[in-house]
């Protein structure tokens, strides 16, 4: 079948979508005035905004194509990769999230320096930069290939369009733009996925008939234990359920920056609960259902049985979508890419500024200077990512090399972070052994795959070199990395617990105290509505953690807050989700009852106008 080139209506919808995203992202750029805003969105967002933007980041451009293919070939088990995250919730939400939030870590390399030493930071900075820049290129290339297959577009034109749009709004608005556009794009890709599902089942004669047309083994959510080699339960469990999930939520710079955008750890936890219990299930259906529909349509004789599984998403979209709807689905596919690419651009900028420029080139510049560097870096990352598209498209060996590089470094990095966060005895020598030893072991496995056999769980080898035991390699890498780190740590001196306080499990109360600059409050209080009294006072000095506000004793009591506590002041309408808000420290209890006294500059920085009432709540 020739690629569906779409109608003029489809093109109009896709172009309109690009314009809307560009405008949406640029509008929210107005709120960016500091590096804290640019990288962490001012640390003020509500759970639902964080959750929707996280699902958009998680679903990449390849997801619709890849999981539709897997769903067509293996049925409901295509959802396995998306439905393992909850098991990490206790470690993620109650240990790692507080460590990241309260120790004010801006990146994983910074964590490695503070937890271990500067050499480990340098090592991980290099690894993460290669990973990030290559990954931007891979995402742009995947998008170009997908749009070429579906709309007949030139790969480079498609990649350039996405790079330019993302580059503009990320450069303008940083994390705030990323979060707000990802909110829109997350909603859009879920809606488009379910529209496709609805149209597909209607075409087949309803949900019941769709289900009856699926082969029996395609109805199972957990696939055959160890066959076939290219997609089996035990392989996906170790690769996606363990190794990839660890990497995605504990190391991925984009995820860390999103956690830091939440107004509190409690709000971050709420976002994770909604993400794992609701949105990831919906996303699994949204990205996979074209494959299930395609299989059922083959059963009903509506599609040819010899169809190329790689093309199932295109063929199903073509078969069930009318003009206009097709354009909407293609725009959603673009949304999936843009929402991943924008996060990567912002993450790359954060690593360059915080882990390279600030420590190695200019340590004591103003925040305004670093903000300028961050903007330049975002643009440069978009250009370099686009350049990588040419390299990956022209030299397949480089594309394969980046894939092999990623497979080699992700398990050791994940192991090092986990051991660093959960084992107080773990030291810098152990961390180096984990990263280097694990990477060497994995490199050896690419040359001689037989070393993976003891971890294969009976899965057939499947091919030579990096094609052999593609999924089981992750388990081998984790065991090798953790083993090396464990042995070396036990043979060397334990770290000084005082030095790593707040960076490892069991010391989080210290992190909370350090974050607040006083004794933290564990129980949240109710939100209260207050009138604003604008006062003239000096804006917070650069480097000061919070601006100051004054409330009345009665209002503080209602909020269960005291002088010295950190509170969030938000627009009276909760629909803003923290976009128009600020965090401040209560400096006095001298305001009139029912009133909050805030400085003019502080109000302006929070996007609040000082008119009407605001909502105030205790953060810590």
């Amino acid at each position, binding site marked *: 079948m020739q690629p569906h080139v779409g109608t003029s209506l489809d093109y109009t919808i896709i172009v309109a979508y690009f314009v809307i995203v560009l405008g949406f992202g640029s509008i929210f750029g107005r709120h960016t005035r500091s590096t804290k805003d640019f990288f962490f969105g001012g640390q003020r967002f509500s759970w639902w905004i964080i959750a929707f933007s996280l699902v958009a980041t998680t679903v990449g451009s390849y997801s619709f194509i890849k999981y539709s293919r897997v769903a067509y070939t293996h049925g409901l088990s295509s959802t396995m990769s998306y439905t393992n995250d909850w098991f990490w919730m*206790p470690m993620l939400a109650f*240990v790692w999230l507080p460590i990241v939030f309260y120790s004010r870590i801006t990146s994983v390399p910074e964590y490695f320096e503070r937890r271990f030493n500067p050499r480990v930071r340098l090592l991980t900075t290099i690894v993460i930069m290669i990973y990030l820049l290559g990954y931007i290129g891979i995402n742009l290339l995947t998008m170009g290939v997908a749009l070429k297959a579906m709309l007949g577009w030139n790969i480079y034109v498609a990649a350039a369009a996405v790079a330019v749009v993302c580059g503009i709004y990320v450069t303008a608005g940083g994390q705030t733009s990323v979060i707000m556009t990802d909110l829109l794009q997350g909603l859009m890709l879920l809606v488009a996925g379910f529209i496709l599902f609805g149209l597909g089942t209607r075409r087949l004669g309803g949900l019941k008939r769709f289900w009856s047309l699926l082969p029996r083994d395609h*109805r199972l959510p957990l696939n055959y234990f160890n066959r076939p080699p290219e997609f089996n339960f035990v392989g996906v469990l170790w690769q996606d*359920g363990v190794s990839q999930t660890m990497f995605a939520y504990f190391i991925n710079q984009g995820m860390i920056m999103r956690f830091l955008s939440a107004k509190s750890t409690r709000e971050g936890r709420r976002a994770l609960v909604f993400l794992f*219990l609701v949105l990831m299930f919906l996303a699994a259906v949204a990205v996979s259902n074209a494959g299930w529909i395609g299989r059922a349509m083959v059963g009903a004789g509506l599609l040819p049985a010899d169809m190329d599984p790689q093309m199932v998403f295109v063929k199903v979209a073509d078969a069930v979508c009318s003009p206009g709807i097709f354009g909407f689905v293609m725009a959603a596919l673009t949304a999936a890419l843009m929402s991943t690419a924008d996060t990567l651009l912002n993450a790359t900028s954060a690593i360059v500024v915080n882990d390279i420029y600030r420590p190695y080139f200019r340590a004591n510049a103003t925040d305004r200077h670093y903000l300028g560097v961050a903007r330049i870096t975002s643009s440069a990352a978009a250009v370099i990512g686009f350049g990588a598209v040419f390299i990956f498209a022209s030299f397949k060996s480089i594309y394969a090399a980046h894939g092999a590089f990623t497979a080699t470094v992700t398990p050791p990095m994940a192991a090092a972070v986990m051991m660093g966060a959960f084992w107080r005895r773990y030291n810098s020598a152990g961390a180096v052994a984990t990263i280097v030893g694990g990477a060497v072991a994995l490199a050896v496995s690419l040359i001689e795959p037989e070393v993976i056999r003891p971890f294969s769980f009976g899965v057939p080898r499947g091919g030579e070199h990096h094609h052999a035991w593609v999924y089981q390699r992750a388990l081998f890498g984790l065991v090798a990395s953790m083993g090396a780190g464990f042995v070396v740590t036990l043979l060397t001196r334990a770290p000084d617990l005082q030095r790593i306080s707040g960076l490892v499990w069991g010391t989080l*109360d210290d992190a909370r105290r350090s974050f607040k600059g006083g004794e933290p409050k564990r*129980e949240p209080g109710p939100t209260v509505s207050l009138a604003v009294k604008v006062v003239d006072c000096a804006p917070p000095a650069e480097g000061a953690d919070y601006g100051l506000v004054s409330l009345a004793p009665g209002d503080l009591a209602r909020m269960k807050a005291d002088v010295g506590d950190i509170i969030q002041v938000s627009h009276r309408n909760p629909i803003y989700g923290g976009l128009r808000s600020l965090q401040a420290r209560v400096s006095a209890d001298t305001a009139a009852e029912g009133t909050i006294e805030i400085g003019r500059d502080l109000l302006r920085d929070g996007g609040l106008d000082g008119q009407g009432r605001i909502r105030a709540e205790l953060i810590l």
Partner: protein
Amino acid sequence: MDSPLGIFLFEYLVLGVVFFVGLVYAIRQGDVGLRRGRPRKNLVMLLSGYVLYMAVHGFFQFIAVGF
């Protein structure tokens, strides 16, 4: 091991270890536990999520497959 039940049990054994080891860390940290208030709410939330995942996987693995 290739039976639907064997695979289901393997999933909840391996990832169950991840979950319950994490739970022990979270309980010892003090944010999760049987104490009234926030710790108990967090414990109920975590265990409810675990049960929900089991229920969804179990429903499709053992019941819906025969519809």
